[in-house]
Each structure stands twice: as C-alpha cells, then as structure tokens.
C-alpha cells in the first residue's frame, strides 16, 4: 500500500482511484480495530470488525467534507470507525434492556431515600441519613423527570449515554447538556446547604 498525504486520500477516495483507495483504507482500519478490540470481542472478532469497517467506510465517504485536516486523514478515519464500532457494540450489549429495567425499585419515591448498604457505625449512619434527605430532595425537587431518569439509568444502571439517549428519543449531545444542567443544579443546591461534593463523598466512602 502506498503512503498518501491527506490531500491524496481525499482526492483518491473521490476520484478515479476510488476502488484502490477504499481497499487501502479498509486494510488500515481493519488492522487498527482488530488490535484495539481483540480484548472486547471474544468471538467472531474478524467478521464483526469487517462489518464495522464496511459501515465506517460508508460513513467516511459521506462525511469527508467535514475532515478539517488537523490530523492525519487515517487518524480521523479511524476515529469514525471506532465510533461506528462502539455504537453497534453498545446497541448489541443493551438491546434487551429498557430504562425501566435499570431504575431502582420505587424510583418515583424519594422520601425517604434509603441506602442499600448503610454504615455499621451508628454516628456515621445518622450523618448519612441527613445527607440522603438532601440528596432525595435534590433529585425530586431540583431535577426534571427526564434528568432524573437519565441520571439514574447512567449512575445506577450503568447504561452508556448514547443508549440512554436512544431510549429517550434524543441524541448524545442533547442528553449530555441535559445532564450538565442537572449536575449544575445539584452543585448549586449543595452550595446552598453549605456543602461540597467532597463533604458528601467523605461520608459515603468505602469503610
């Protein structure tokens, strides 16, 4: 495979050398993904990577005009391929799980908020209860239902942001902004109470 400058990649992928350039790009992307995903995909690695690369090449050809030239073209293309791969892997991993499956029991009821693993130390348990009251009121009063649902699906359920976004009929950026607003609200409420996140963390750290 010949080395290409960024300009040559762009011209070859859209000109008469397209077939050869696509095959070269396929080899580059496949090599990178096989290496980087080998520990995450235990079965059928090569055939899954082939599918990711095929989808990525279509995406790259479609989005080539957004390449800003701030990196090598192949680095940018690999970035697109990694995004394609993770989108599909996450979709597969979470396909049978709804948001409701991930929310805690009684997730509409924040009073009282209870700790599933309270401290054995009575004094510490009392401080935890006081803080849980504040956290419960933050969740129920300061956040919208969408913010609460997304926050709990991610923090409690461990679902990736893009999968939560899909289930909430939004996109990853919009959901990030929604959660950014939620975090700012929670930070402000703590400040009003004369607390910092570090204060709370100290009370809920591993004993």
């Amino acid at each position, binding site marked *: 495979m010949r080395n290409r400058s960024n300009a040559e990649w762009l011209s070859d992928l859209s000109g008469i050398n397209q077939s050869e350039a696509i095959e070269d790009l396929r080899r580059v992307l496949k090599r*990178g993904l096989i*290496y980087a995903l080998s520990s995450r995909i235990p079965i059928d690695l090569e055939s899954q990577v082939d599918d990711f690369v095929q989808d990525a090449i279509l995406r790259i050809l479609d989005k080539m005009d957004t390449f800003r030239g*701030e990196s090598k073209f192949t680095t940018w293309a*690999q*970035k697109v391929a990694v995004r394609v791969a993770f989108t599909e892997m996450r979709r597969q991993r979470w396909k049978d799980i709804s948001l409701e499956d991930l929310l805690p029991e009684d997730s*509409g009821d924040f009073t009282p908020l209870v700790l599933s*693993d309270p401290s054995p130390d009575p004094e510490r348990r009392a401080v935890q209860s006081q803080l849980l009251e504040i*956290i419960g009121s933050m969740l129920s009063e300061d956040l919208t239902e969408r913010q609460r649902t997304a926050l709990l699906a991610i923090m409690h359920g461990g679902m990736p942001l893009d999968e939560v976004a899909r289930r909430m009929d939004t996109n990853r950026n919009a959901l990030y902004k929604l959660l950014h607003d939620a975090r700012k609200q929670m930070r402000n409420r703590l400040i009003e109470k004369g607390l910092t996140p570090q204060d709370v963390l100290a009370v809920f750290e591993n004993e």
Partner: protein
Amino acid sequence: MKLSSETIRKMMNSVKSTRDQELTCGHCHDELDHFIEMRLAGKNAEEAMPLVQEHLDRCAGCREEYEVLLEAIQAMIT
C-alpha cells in the same frame, strides 16, 4: 427508593467535576484525532486542550472510545 453508596459516590463525583463550560460529547469527538496525535507526538495535549481532557475524565463512554482509538492508531503506525 434505595440507592447504594456507590451510586451516591458516582453522583457526587460527577457533581464535583462539573464546570460551567464543558464540551459536549460531539465537540470532544471533533477534537479527538488532533488530541491523540498531539499525545503520540509527545506534546502536552492535556495542557493544550484542557476541555477535551476534562471531558474524557468525566465521560466514561468518550473515554472508552478514546482509549480504543489510541490503541488502534498505535497499531496502525507500528
């Protein structure tokens, strides 16, 4: 509602790392190829692009993609 200490800690860590100005996942992704090449060139990408580094520290999904991309690029150039 019952929550674990771990969930409370995750929430508080996310609040602790909150800044008024943050990159979204999309903006972080836009910068990621440049960020990685700076790192591979031995430059101080974290200092040059602190908002990208902060987003990667905060967002598990973007961090996972970044780590895999870094490995993939290293495999491409070796």
